[in-house]
């Protein structure tokens, strides 16, 4: 699968990747640094930095790290919601798609999770986790948290399901959105799937308790008292044979190295929508 982003180099601009971070789980911010390192390696930007809500550098500190006048800010979040609409604009003093503040020009892109190229990423992940499993005999479940508080978090997943379903190349017998805390519940996967094979992709940026423990418990191959975070073997014991089906379980979608391309695609989309002919002025 050809997946490389076509974003032209921006040697005068900086990229600032914004993540949630955690005061409890050190694995939480690892994907953001991985994405930053990958993009830095490609030499597309003068600088590539990360900042966080729960870790350092904070969003309030981040601009001090940056020399470039022009900064693309990409929320490495899975959906639109409280953080992308309230917290990040408040912390970085953003007032629109492009804001001039403190001597800098800040471009605020959409969160990575809602970009259409996430679809290819999900399909790539299914090929990695369940190679040679016939899609015609498989159900793909994309799992989110699900909560009454933020309908957008479920919308991002429903959109991906719809995009995959309408792809001419889609051969899955069924593609379904499921959630940890609202219907359709991932814990009922065996009843939701009519096929002998099931592939489960958690729609989160980072691996943490949800993907290490909570979802495996709901799927039925880990016990409640299982080992705590950073026990990545849960992703390496595929396939699981339980409830008369064969189950393939993926790590969180955000840990996919190709997420770097989705970040770049989100910047290309921003330019197309908000910056007129950036390569010609």
């Amino acid at each position: 699968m050809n997946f490389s982003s076509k974003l032209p180099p921006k040697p005068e601009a900086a990229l600032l990747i914004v993540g949630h971070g955690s005061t409890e789980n050190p694995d939480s911010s690892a994907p953001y640094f991985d994405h930053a390192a990958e993009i830095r390696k490609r030499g597309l930007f003068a600088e590539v930095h990360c900042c966080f809500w729960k870790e350092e550098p904070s969003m309030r500190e981040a601009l001090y790290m940056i020399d470039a006048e022009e900064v693309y800010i990409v929320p490495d979040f899975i959906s639109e919601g409280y953080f992308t609409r309230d917290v990040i604009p408040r912390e970085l003093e953003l007032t629109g798609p492009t804001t001039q503040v403190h001597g800098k020009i800040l471009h605020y892109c959409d969160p990575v999770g809602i970009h259409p190229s996430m679809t290819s990423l999900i399909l790539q992940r299914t090929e990695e986790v369940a190679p040679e499993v016939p899609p015609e005999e498989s159900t793909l479940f994309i799992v989110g948290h699900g909560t009454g508080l933020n309908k957008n978090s479920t919308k991002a997943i429903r959109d991906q399901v719809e995009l995959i379903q309408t792809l001419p190349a889609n051969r899955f017998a069924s593609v379904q959105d499921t959630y940890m805390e609202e219907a359709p519940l991932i814990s009922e996967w065996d009843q939701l799937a009519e096929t002998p094979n099931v592939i489960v992709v958690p729609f989160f940026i980072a691996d943490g308790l949800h993907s290490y423990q909570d979802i495996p418990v709901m799927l039925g191959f880990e016990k409640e008292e299982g080992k705590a975070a950073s026990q990545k073997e849960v992703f390496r014991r595929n396939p699981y044979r339980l409830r008369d089906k064969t189950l393939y379980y993926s790590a969180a979608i955000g840990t996919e190295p190709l997420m770097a391309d989705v970040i770049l695609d989100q910047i290309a989309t921003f330019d197309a929508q908000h910056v007129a002919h950036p390569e010609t002025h």
Partner: protein
Amino acid sequence: MPNMSLTQKLTEALAGGLQQIGQIKILTDHDLAPFVLVHLDDEDADFSSLNAHPNPDKAREIGLYTPDGDYRFTKGEMSLPGGWLLLLQSPGEVRQALDLFYPASLGLWAAWKDGSVRIQNLRDKLARQTGMYRHAANVSDVGAQELIQSVCGPSNKCVKKILWQLDENTPLDDSEASRFNGVVNNIAENSAIPLVCQEACNHFVAQARKKSKEEFEAKA
């Protein structure tokens, strides 16, 4: 020096005798590499006994846990483990490593030095919180002053110099935390980049929320 990049400012500072930030010594006259970063406690150790790394990105992994294995989510904690060397080739690599060891500290130091740092006092910081953290704004002045002495400062492992006050008219109560200059081991300030705190961190805000809840429950 408004038009200099941070890397240029760092280069100039290193040439001018800079040798320390937080718990890290920066050596510019060692045979092993043009720039050697080492933990202050290992400065006199046999360097061949330390784990040497050539990649500045290693700094994140080194600073992730305390020597006791606890997660260091605040990087100003005086709990950086030793036993390592970073062998770096350029000031740009030093900057990259420092931004992982002490995120944004180099930029904050440069902004503080040239007077462009934007300081936000605690009351303004708490007032702009939303969601579950908006209740942090209810903490009393007495409670906030107590928190500073129980959350900030070297005794509580944070080695940043606090630049903010409670509000425009209310300085911090005198304490080790309020007096600390952001430099470990009290070496000459022009030899070190002080770690500065331009506004209360989100860890402090979370503690203020707890304190506010305790105060509310105590009144009930």
